[in-house]
């Protein structure tokens, strides 16, 4: 694929090959979701388990020590909400 994965057919590389490694990072998978995770900071104990379980690896620690999801990639699977030991994450309509 060319630098921009989403392009006209004429710009696709031969056989849809990828010539810039890691260009899947440009693909917004976030628009596949119906529900998005929202963290209740009162309940969150900053254990980071949600980020370990996220199959998209899209949860990371911020400066305040909380673990928000990057909604550009989050597919809304709800695994984080299911795994959170404090039920701090609720899945709400996107």
């Amino acid at each position, binding site marked *: 694929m060319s630098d921009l994965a989403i*392009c006209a057919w004429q710009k696709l590389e031969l*056989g849809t090959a990828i010539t810039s*490694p890691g260009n899947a990072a440009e693909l917004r998978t976030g628009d596949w979701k119906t529900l998005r995770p929202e963290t209740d900071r009162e309940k969150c104990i900053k254990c980071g388990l949600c980020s370990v379980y996220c199959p998209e690896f899209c949860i990371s620690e911020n400066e305040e020590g909380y673990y928000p999801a990057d909604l550009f990639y989050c597919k809304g699977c709800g695994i984080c909400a299911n795994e959170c030991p404090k039920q701090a994450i609720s899945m709400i309509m996107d």
Partner: protein
Amino acid sequence: MTKAIGLEVSLAIAEAVKQANVDIVAAYPITPQTHIVEELSVYVANGELDAEYVPVESEHTAMSACVGSSAAGARTYTATAAQGLALMHEILYIASGMRLPIVMTVANRALSAPISIWNDHGDIMSERDIGWVQIFAENGQEAYDLTIAAFKIAEDHRVLLPVCVNVDGFILTHMIEPVLFIDQKKIDAFLPPFKPAMTLNPDKPVTMGPVGVPEVYMESRKQCEEAIMGSRQVVAEVFSQWGQSFGRDYKLIETNGQPRAKVLFVTMGSQGETTMTAVQDLSESGESVGQVRIRLWRPFPREEFLEAIAGAEELIVIDRALSPGVYNGPVAQEIKALLYEQPQKPKIHNVIAGLGGRDVTVKDFKKMYEMSRKNELDPNYTIWGVRSDA
């Protein structure tokens, strides 16, 4: 002046592949395989062909190995038939989707059940949509010539698609025919070494055959569609270069018999030669009859076909495959769909003949002609010569 040598057509094809100087032959060597790959393994073992010979455990793997080797930049060849082609099915789409110029001979044979090792076009007709350029040879000379030409077509950077050369199983592959072989130097001049457009190279990493998400898949398919549509022009160019270099001219659609005849037979593959004799006999007795032979099946050469049938009142379209449940054989379906848009349409009789190796002789074609004149052929389709109690 070169002399024609009598040789089994499978061996003539193996010679063509050797002369094309392939780098890799990957093949499953057991039934329904022909002598083509057996002979190639002998060439490699004897050091007459500097290539890797990969005897794999199935046709699925044969085509997978071909995909890998072509991706790595090697000139790649395989051959198969019938169930073997069916077992490759999944990977055939991958080869074209990844734009890999593999060349394959298909010795057309019937698909089981019942078990058959004899000729018909059922195997390749199940693979019409694989996105490969598909050519049909009519005799041993054509099988030899078109096999070499296939590499030039496939590897042209305007095409970069796999090409399959169809030869009728047994009727051609196991027949001894006179073939004019071409001097190696001339072949080397015609077919320069393969220059891949993209290869697997650690210095310039690429991912071939990645996931095509819904945002990409359709553009990817469109790219392949454009490539195969555009290949028609390249096939015509390569055929005419072949004519200039070696004196044997090939066209996408061939015609013979009375020019602008009222009745035209439409054939594909070796059956065309038998039909030709019938057409000649009928013409000599004053009948207005001719013949159209489809050499390029994919992409289908619409303009050339329409030009070839212009003015005809009736077509007798011979299909060597059944397309169960839709009334017509695959070739007739194609032609009927094409003619729907045309203001002038000839009447079409579809005759499905020669399934599973059943002989179709000059007499049969004459009978078809006679019946069509008397309006005795089914207006839709006839399964020719099938025994019935009714």
